[in-house]
């Protein structure tokens, strides 16, 4: 019997820029054979806001409020990155208490980001909001802490070179301790619902596999690289700020599929809780910002770093977030560039999606954890 082939057509569909699951205004042009993806072209730039160019026209410190809007889930980490770059450029020493507060904020941000991304990932898988809303309940508690410290829930604008803008209010540390100590209880509850769930395992295991070599070659960072087994965490590698003082581990996945990315994030949250508990126990007294940092925060135009360049990087919840500053000796940066982890992690989207189904493409995108504010800048 000779094989007869029916004539079929490829179907090209546009997922986005208006689509419930592209996490903003991202667009994927997917070419489908039936339900299988044979080609996928990401289109970015719908949210381009000229962030880097604006940064070159204003003083160094004036960029802080803009960095909040980069990855609007993690304002604190973004602030932290820019502060590190400016400190390197100007040779500013941060105060001890300031460092502790910054690390506490950055790790709280990691919790906020990871619960939210797990919730959204489950939403992409089709769970009708339940995991997301449980995640948001915890996120709200931490955002309340941010509001108490910085005056704003999401656009915190809190970290400054040399420390933080102001010290945390009274009773804040007690509140933070309580929330941090209760967080593992929530994680256990969350995991009971999700980790062993048969449907989630069927949907997520061996889907969107990112091999270790590709992850390294494409300079993927953050939980995505660690899910593929790449032991690369800036907190360990670079040892910036006071991270070397804390005992914590870096969870690594083995397969590099969506499930590993989900579970590595859960484990990272548990490690973050450990860091937070240590930091909240050891936090010293003293000023929250060093005198020099205070001076340039109050009078940004007086800060004229010497000619040169500096690259400050943090382990943002999404990956390596780097700020590259070039100074020409004036009060404004000559060049201001951001290495955005969302953007760089997104470049392997097509490699992971080829040969998978449409439904998989959505959860693969969800598992990359992008925020369009950071992708398009």
């Amino acid at each position, binding site marked *: 019997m000779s094989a007869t082939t029916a004539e079929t057509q490829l179907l090209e569909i546009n997922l986005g820029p208006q689509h*419930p699951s592209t996490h903003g205004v991202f667009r994927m042009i997917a070419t489908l054979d039936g*339900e299988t993806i044979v080609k996928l072209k990401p289109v970015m730039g719908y949210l381009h806001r000229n962030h880097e160019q604006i940064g070159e026209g204003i003083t160094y410190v004036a960029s802080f409020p803009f960095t909040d809007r980069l990855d609007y889930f993690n304002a604190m980490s973004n602030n932290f990155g820019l502060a590190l770059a400016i400190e390197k450029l100007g040779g500013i020493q941060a105060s001890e208490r300031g460092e502790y507060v910054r690390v506490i904020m950055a790790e709280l941000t990691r919790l906020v980001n990871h619960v939210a991304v797990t919730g959204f990932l489950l939403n992409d898988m089709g*769970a009708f909001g*339940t995991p997301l809303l449980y995640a948001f309940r915890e996120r709200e508690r931490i955002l309340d802490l941010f509001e108490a410290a910085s005056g704003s829930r999401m656009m915190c604008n809190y970290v400054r070179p040399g420390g933080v803008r102001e010290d945390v209010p009274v009773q804040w540390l007690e509140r933070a301790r309580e929330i941090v100590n209760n967080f593992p209880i929530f994680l256990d509850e969350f995991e009971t619902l999700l980790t062993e769930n048969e449907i989630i395992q069927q949907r997520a295991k061996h889907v969107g596999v990112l091999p270790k070599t590709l992850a390294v070659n494409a300079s993927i960072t953050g939980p995505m690289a660690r899910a593929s087994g790449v032991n690369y965490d800036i907190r360990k590698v670079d040892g910036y700020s006071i991270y070397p003082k804390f005992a914590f581990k870096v969870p690594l996945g083995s397969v590099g599929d969506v499930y590993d990315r989900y579970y590595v994030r859960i484990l990272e949250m548990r490690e973050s809780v450990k860091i937070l508990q240590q930091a909240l126990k050891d936090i010293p007294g003293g000023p929250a910002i060093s005198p020099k940092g205070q001076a340039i925060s109050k009078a940004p135009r007086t800060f004229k770093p010497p000619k040169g360049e500096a690259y400050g990087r943090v382990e943002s919840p999404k990956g390596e977030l780097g700020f590259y500053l070039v100074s020409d000796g004036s009060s404004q940066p000559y060049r201001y560039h951001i290495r955005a982890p969302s953007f760089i992690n997104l470049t392997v989207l097509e490699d992971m999606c080829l040969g998978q*189904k449409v439904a998989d493409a959505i959860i693969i995108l969800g598992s990359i954890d992008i925020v369009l504010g950071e992708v398009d800048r």
Partner: protein
Amino acid sequence: MSFLDLFRNLDQLFVNVSGWLLGLLPDWLQPWASIAMRIGVIAAIAPAIMMYLTWIERKAIARMQNRYGPTRVGIYGLAQPLADGLKMLNKEDIVPRGADRLVHLIAPVLAVAPAILLFAVMPFGRNLIAADLNVGLLYVFAISSISSYAIFMGGWASRSKFSVLGAMRGVAQIVSYEVPSVLSAVAVIMVTGSLSLGTIVESQAGYWFVFTPWGFVACLIFFLSGVAEVNRTPFDMPEAESELVGGFHTEYSGMKFALWYMAEFLESFAVCAFTVALFLGGWHGPAIPFWVLALALAILIGTARLLPLPVRGVGALVMVGAGVFWAAQPIPSWIWFLSKTYFLFFVLVWFRGTFPRLRADQLMGLAWKFFLPLALVNILVAGVWLMPQTPVRWAPCLLILWGAVSLLVAVNKPSITDRRTYVLAD
């Protein structure tokens, strides 16, 4: 019979009222009036049921998600469905450019019509069935399969790629799940020897079919296939919000969209109702007397520490009162039927609040590789069950089913259940 006598027998309340009303009319008009009345009642209660199903779903899911759900319109948001209906009516009806306007219009109507037609053979209570057809079950399957046409028409006529994809998935899914669904009902037909839903329910007077080995398996297959046929989570592939925006109804708005929703909810209700009729004893109550049940519930409510004290007191008293009242008079058959049906609908809502969605190909695998062979084996089991009555008939039935299930699970076992270890590196 005086008017008040009608309320003496709550079980036959609706039957008696309709008989009394028809008695007021001249003889030659009665058959026609009887038909018109049945049609009228179904046409009136179907939308009402649908409206409050949406309310139940929203409230129940909200509670599962730490929310309140609708609270603003009426007490407990009870008028919310009315407000939603008005909003839908006021919305602009958008037809995409290049769409087939006529088919685009007909599709939602074609989806709702069979959903309402299913109510005609729904056995709500003893003698309370609009048309007890002797081919009732066949009618159910025939009518419910029309919805695949509606979905495909809607998806195709919208001239949108999302709609076409959704429609493709929808048709594949409905056609696939129809097979195990029908085959699981075959067992019931074998045992009762009838296709009439009235007779099927009657024959469950002693024991509900779900308490037999074949009935239990068939009930699960029938209910889950039904869930898949009406596109509810975790089988809501055709409308998959996170992938296909709205699937086949992406391009619908206003009242046409509301009609799609209505069809979905009415069909969900029908799936629950027919599962109850075929397997869960229909309008029959359990064999335990109600006062025992009420007493147990009263103790349960009275001692529940989570509830506030007034609620505990009032709840326990209500239960005791109900026990006393229904001890004097059996619970009407229609209350049993509706409470079981609404309980199954709650299970559907529960699914929706808990489960993520399967993928389209995994869904097909479940239908063809697991449900279908199991339903076939189940027919064999029903045959064994029907062999000359012996007290040991449980043993061979359970043995066959256990063997079949373990074989199918072994064959279909996905490779993904391996436990993974995660390195905690320094």
